[in-house]
């Protein structure tokens, strides 16, 4: 966002590229649930465009702005007479050129986008939908502000690493007061918790337990590789730093065993994606620039890669952040140079290290299915490497689920703003998982893990979520030291128990394509 002007300004030409062909409608998860134009990319782009720079309507004879300046062709027939159709007796209504849409009215279309990138991949014209939507959100937030809760989360906690670290540590001690540890309550609740009090919206939500010891501290006490080694940096991101710390530890071990030292600077801040997609662009820019400096210093010091194990962080570092600096080629150039060295850990393990697993059988002989995080498969283009890793692991049975690359509905804190839409989108994912009869759902993004864990508990499916790096690390340890997976004969199907089907959480259960009738489009207090 340049200092003056709107965040959307650099994207006006991109907005014009949308042909309204509708190919986005085939892939958009929110359109699949609602079947409504204002819940799909072309509808959102249309609304944004009408706000900022409407396209002329040249071919509509009824358009009062349609000023005919007949072109004199060298040898052409008459263009015929335009005008309305004499056959219609229906009373004509005066057609306004523009509706008085209050910018506030487009909040729901604007903020109901998951940012899953499916439309961008399907778009024949190459419209950067996500960048446009987040720019429009930035302008929206600039005008109408952000809810207090969101502001606290994004500009308070995530923007200040110390808050995050101490907050998490405090939470790890205090969480027992406010949250129920599900390890004792539910057979599949190990490592999860649920609020004790009836907080609005999230009272049934399952969260990962905050880590007692943050990742940075745990890593400090781990031995590095022996002898001469290569060096990579690790960008853990917020969730891996304070909740899923095992993932970072697993990566450290895997790399150390293969002669690679992993440097995890304490100075990293949030990757900036949450701030960017929620319209807090000033915060996002600060975070991106801060991390960029660290990356540059690391690369100058001869680090060969910056690895990520959170798909969203990786995608942000590799290219999303560039949209924040449209019209600033110098910064974009620096981002580009750094981005070339950003790689997802699974891709690094396969493409660079040609990963061979350790000697031990993993997870018994469980059926494992892999869920593609949006930001990994479409954001970073990593599709095959995680599957290749699973195939190389001894013992497990990888089974491909239907539409593995469809969004799980997690999308950061989307579930807080759009709990019902998020749950119905996830229901498709859970059905696909159930069809594979998988006991383990492997993925490569902590945000997806959080969403899937809640879903698997909520719909009592008896399957468990795991970060793929943890599975790989298990192959280095004898079964007694491995992460313990609950072995089950078979996973049950989603929603077998009435009380836990999303049918209860959402006004009416929508398997298949839920219709708008089934969705109370309510926004929570955000």
């Amino acid at each position: 966002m340049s200092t003056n002007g709107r965040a959307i300004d650099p994207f006006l030409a991109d907005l014009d590229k949308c042909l309204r062909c509708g190919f986005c409608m085939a892939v958009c998860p929110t359109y699949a649930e609602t079947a409504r134009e204002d819940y799909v990319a072309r509808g959102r782009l249309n609304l944004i465009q009408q706000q900022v720079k409407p396209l002329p309507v040249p071919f509509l004879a009824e358009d009062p702005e349609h000023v005919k300046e007949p072109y004199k062709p060298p040898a052409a027939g008459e263009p015929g007479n335009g005008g309305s159709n004499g056959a219609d007796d229906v009373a004509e209504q005066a057609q306004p050129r523009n509706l008085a849409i209050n910018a506030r009215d487009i909040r729901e279309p604007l903020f109901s986008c998951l940012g899953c990138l499916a439309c961008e991949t399907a778009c024949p014209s190459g419209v950067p939908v996500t960048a446009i939507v987040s720019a429009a959100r930035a302008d929206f937030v600039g005008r109408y502000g952000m809810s207090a809760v969101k502001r606290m989360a994004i500009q308070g906690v995530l923007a200040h690493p110390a808050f995050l670290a101490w907050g998490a540590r405090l939470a790890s001690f205090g969480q027992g007061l406010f949250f129920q540890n599900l390890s004792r309550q539910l057979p599949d609740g190990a490592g999860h918790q649920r609020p004790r009090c009836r907080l609005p919206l999230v009272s049934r939500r399952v969260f990962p337990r905050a880590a007692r010891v943050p990742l940075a501290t745990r890593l400090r006490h781990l031995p590095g590789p022996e002898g001469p080694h290569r060096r990579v940096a690790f960008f853990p991101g917020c969730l891996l730093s304070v909740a899923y710390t095992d993932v970072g530890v697993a990566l450290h071990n895997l790399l150390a065993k293969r002669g690679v030292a992993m440097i995890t600077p304490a100075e990293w801040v949030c990757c900036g994606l949450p701030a960017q997609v929620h319209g807090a662009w000033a915060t996002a820019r600060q975070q991106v620039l801060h991390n960029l400096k660290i990356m540059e210093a690391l690369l100058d010091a001869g680090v060969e890669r910056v690895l990520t194990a959170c798909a969203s962080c990786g995608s942000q570092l590799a290219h999303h952040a560039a949209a924040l600096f449209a019209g600033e080629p110098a910064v974009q150039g620096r981002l580009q140079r750094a981005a070339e060295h950003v790689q997802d850990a699974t891709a690094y393990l396969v493409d660079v290290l040609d990963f061979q697993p350790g000697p031990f059988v993993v997870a018994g002989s469980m059926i494992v299915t892999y869920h593609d995080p949006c930001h990994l498969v479409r954001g970073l283009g990593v599709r095959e490497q995680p599957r290749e890793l699973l195939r190389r692991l001894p013992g497990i049975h990888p089974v491909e689920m239907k539409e593995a690359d469809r969004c799980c509905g997690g999308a950061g804190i989307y579930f807080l703003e759009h709990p019902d839409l998020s749950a119905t989108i996830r229901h498709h994912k859970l059905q696909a998982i159930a069809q594979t009869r998988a006991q383990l759902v492997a993925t490569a993004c902590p945000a997806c893990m959080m969403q899937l864990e809640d879903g698997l508990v909520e719909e009592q499916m008896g399957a468990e979520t795991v970060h793929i790096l943890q599975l790989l690390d298990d192959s280095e340890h004898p079964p007694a030291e491995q992460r313990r997976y609950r072995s089950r004969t078979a996973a049950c199907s989603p929603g077998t128990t009435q009380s836990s089907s999303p049918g209860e959480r959402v006004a009416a259960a929508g398997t298949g394509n839920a219709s708008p009738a089934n969705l109370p489009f309510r926004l929570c207090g955000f």
Partner: protein
Amino acid sequence: MAVQREPNLSPGLRQQLARIVGAENCLTGPVARESYAYDSTPGYRAFPAAVVLPASTEEVAKVVRLCAEAGLGITPRGAGTNLSGGTVPVKGGVVVCFTRMQKIVSVDAANQTAVVEPGVITARFHQVVEAQGLFFPPDPGSQSVSTLGGNVAENAGGLRGLKYGVTRDYVLGLEAVLADGSIIQTGSETLKNVTGYNLTQLLCGSEGTLALFTKLILRLVPRPPARRSFLAYFADIQRAAATVPALVEAGVLPATLEIMDRITLQAVEDFAHLGLPGGLAAMLLIEVDGQPAQVEAEAATVEVVLSRSGASEWQAARDESTRNRIWSARRAALAALSRRRPATILEDVTVPRRQIPAMFATIQSIASRYQLEIGTFGHAGDGNLHPTILCDLRDRKEINRVEAAVAELFDAALSLGGVLSGEHGIGLAKNRFLHRQLGQTVIILQRDIKRTFDPQGLLNPGKALGVIP
């Protein structure tokens, strides 16, 4: 400029509509009105007073009855991927959107028929019937999103027209709501039916001007188990065009016979870097399908014809991965063209097969005289070409040239014995040209038919019935 703050709909009417379809499926706010003001046709936009999304035949009938009493126009809409402005509610009124009616009621493998609701997405239907060894050939370019109801209303075509025909050839019957709200049934689940006028075929392709469909009875065929694709490059377009009738005369009826011109190929290469040979003037994509033995025989004939055709290079795909490579250029065509300029105006003039070379020559001449970039690809087998005009809607001068060029394009197609539209429909975009093809008498006849079905002129007002010069 009159800015309309409130929808042109009385609160009483709004309440009644909401009572029929449920409040959450009756949209009258400015955001919804803005969101149903367009379809896939560039350069058209008009606001409805309300959008309703019914879930059943009864709801549709009640909505229509209410609109008829109030004298409100009705614009039916599926996915809104129309390419002739047919779903733009140009006279305001109510948009009836069928996207919630998406049940596949039955697929009868023994009878080879299916009954579906109009909001079923074409590609989903393909998947469902193909899983049962059946085949529904119509495959319009927007099949991944378009609805079957919209396909029937527009009589949509696609790539398989030459061998398999178009949507019309697979519609056996309809359940439809007339303009007064009464529900009728046309046709049947039988292949043979000569009882009464063929109203099914009259409604099919009527672009929403005669009735609203609420159920479709569709014909299916066995799924062809084998297929073989060929790709041939030509140094001049006339040779490529001449190969098309040569194939048919040799007794081969390809399922797909696509042609792409120099500009399209150049755009594809610039965009997708497929390594196409340089200096190409045209490319033909041929696919034969059927029983394995028949495919073998037809493939052999295709090879003979191609070797005599003067193609500078050609290749056959014997496996799926080569087939995908061969198809990649055709699949990238629209994306490649649409990335060159902001807007892409996709025409669909259609000429008799033997006139394809002449039509290509005319398109080239029009492009140069009006200083426009026009890439042409299309379904050469059935003479249905897609001259794609690349432009910018914000450039008024260029748009004036586009309008004049389109008018000349239509005249050229007509003078070659062709038609204005092969598969996109008349809608708004071609409405003022209709009389050039049909003439006054036919236009009046059509209006008489329309009046019989819809005396008040409520259904899709402003579309497809032409103007009387």
